[in-house]
């Protein structure tokens, strides 16, 4: 099998990138390079074809309304089927905020537009009038990533999960999926949706490695990844968590 190579598909990189979401791709790529693995990042955007067997890990970030409408139409064409198939085949996927919303069943914007999702996640999103903005801390329930995830959320959409997927974790501070049920994000097979910007992965390196390991395992015989020196990552995580817990903010209330 030789040296493992992670093949990342960066979906709509120029359209769906808000609040530094591209930092997640930078983190995935660097954490492979530091281990001596190969990395290939393929941007796939409007009108491009998507072969579900060509990539190990898919990433889609958040966007503004206009960009989200363009992407929604494009996903509905043929990429949606390919993405669902890839995830059924065990590919890893990370979607943030607007990207997360478009992978659910549908997204009802605050202006009343009903954007159909690709139903990769059993989740529905409706736009709200107030934005949920602030630092977030989430107790992760993901096996191997137990512990706290930190990030920054900024969304007006309220997402509600159905029974076909489970939340990524429970909100300790912040609003999470909808500001009501205390849930944050969603997990289905090796696919994750979340509202956490930050960027998410650099400060939550174990989640990054969870995705990398699952993505590589399909083609490479790997039980675990070689450890990296994450002292800077852990220091940044600790500092962000302290800051988030120090903030006096009520949970689940419109700002």
């Amino acid at each position, binding site marked *: 099998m030789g040296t493992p190579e992670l093949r990342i598909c960066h979906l709509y990189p120029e359209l769906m990138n808000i609040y530094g979401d591209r930092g997640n791709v930078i983190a995935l790529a660097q954490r492979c390079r530091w281990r001596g693995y190969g990395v290939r990042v393929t941007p796939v955007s409007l009108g491009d074809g998507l072969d579900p067997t060509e990539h190990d890990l898919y990433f889609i970030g958040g966007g503004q309304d206009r960009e989200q409408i363009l992407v929604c139409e494009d996903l509905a064409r043929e990429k949606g089927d390919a993405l669902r198939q890839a995830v059924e085949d065990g590919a890893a996927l990370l979607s943030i905020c607007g990207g997360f919303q478009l992978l659910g069943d549908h997204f009802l914007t605050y202006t009343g537009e009903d954007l159909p999702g690709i139903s990769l996640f059993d989740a529905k999103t409706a736009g709200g009038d107030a934005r949920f903005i602030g630092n977030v801390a989430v107790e992760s329930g993901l096996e191997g990533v137990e512990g706290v995830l930190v990030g*920054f959320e900024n969304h007006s959409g309220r997402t509600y999960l159905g029974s076909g997927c489970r939340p990524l974790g429970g909100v300790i501070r912040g609003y999470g999926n909808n500001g009501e049920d205390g849930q944050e994000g969603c997990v289905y097979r090796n696919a994750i949706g979340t509202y956490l910007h930050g960027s998410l992965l*650099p400060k939550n390196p174990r989640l990054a490695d969870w995705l990398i390991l699952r993505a590589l395992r399909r083609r490479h015989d790997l039980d675990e990844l070689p450890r990296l020196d994450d002292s800077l990552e852990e220091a940044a995580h600790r500092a962000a968590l302290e800051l988030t817990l120090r903030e006096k903010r009520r949970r689940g209330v419109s700002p």
Partner: protein
Amino acid sequence: MAAGKAVTQLSRRLGAGAGSNFPGRVVLRLYPEAPEEMAASLAGGCVLVSGTNGKTTTSNLLAGMMRAGGMLPVHNRVGANLMTGITAALAQASDRKGIPRGDIGLFEVDEATLPAAVRRLRPRLVIVTNLFRDQLDRYGELESLARKMDAALKDLDGEAVVLLNADDPLVASLGRDCPARIYYYGIEYAGVAEAGLRHAADSKHCRECGSPLDFKANYFGHMGKYSCPGCGAARPPVDFAATHIELSGTRGSRVRLSTPRWQGELFLGLPGLYNVHNLLAASGCAQLLGLDREAVERGVEGYSTAFGRGERIPVGGRDLFLVLSKNPTGFNEVIRTLRGEGTGLPLLAALNDRIADGRDVSWIWDVDFEELAPLARYLVATGTRARDMALRMKYAGLHPSAIRVEPELKRALRAALEGADEGETVYALTTYTATLDLRRLLTRMKAAPGLWKEA
């Protein structure tokens, strides 16, 4: 003028110094009509400068040109760009009868405050410099901000004038139904264009039809020469242009200006292309106000660097080059400027997440630090989010052994200076409130002149 008089006395009692917003807030509470009254007594009317970046530099340049041309501007303090700050500036400049001692208002206005400022101050001229995402966490989407600004411009009088940055597609699209006369400024020099849009580019789509814009030239961020393949919309022709630009690193740039009335070359002692835009906005506005070429030239010559925006301070036998870097586009421009300074550079980066900086620091992942890492000998990271900064540089490729985290500013400054050789320049890249902190620290150390000097 009853309100104005009371306001002046009140504002004296409240003190003009420290918090620029406090006196304004009290005045507005007691005399809600005070800004209207005071603004109406300015013989030369009001000029408003709005946009994400460059408000302070543009209005400081413009204030210098106005003074050189014999005008006496009433000008708000750095960063005090809400109605409260504007009201405080008017009150503090007024005499005992409540009449402002000045003949023209020159106000930096926060983008979201523009509708209120237009309604209340009835400006004769409005400048919009650019729109970036830097304040999205406060204002939501750029598009909805643009709609609010459209509504504000629609509210202008027919005799008013609007001056827009043609190189910013979103700004150039403003003022569609605006009764005022619209003028544009922009860069007309391919020598400073780069290929392709950067990651940090914000407005990449046609506002009319949503198609991705074609960029024939890209200067920085989403600034460039663009057209829409979908509906044919294009960058408007400009009235005030920079037709030749010679960037000389952190020292500044030589710029050839072309205006409807004259053409000429001048040296701008401010680094980076973004400051060329600020020069175009200020000189364009000066000309629209009837100021002559000499006033523009003297204004630019006499301009002492706007507070914190690129300034060289000798300290401890080294030179500290202090530059405000508060959002991806600004930071990328700074990095581009640093590329002209060689490699092996000592760096100090201060990242704060206070309200004035924006609480969200995820924008640092949109900055092309991958281009800065190879230029750095070492980086000392400081500020309330020092560790985020350090982590960003690690992922950008700077070896962790070259990165030091010192959240406390004084220790960070010492570490950054100690790592540098005698006479060497240490580059300090700081967010808004970190710039204030650093200036304050340097003043205490007697390294820098007063906190800031208003031009």
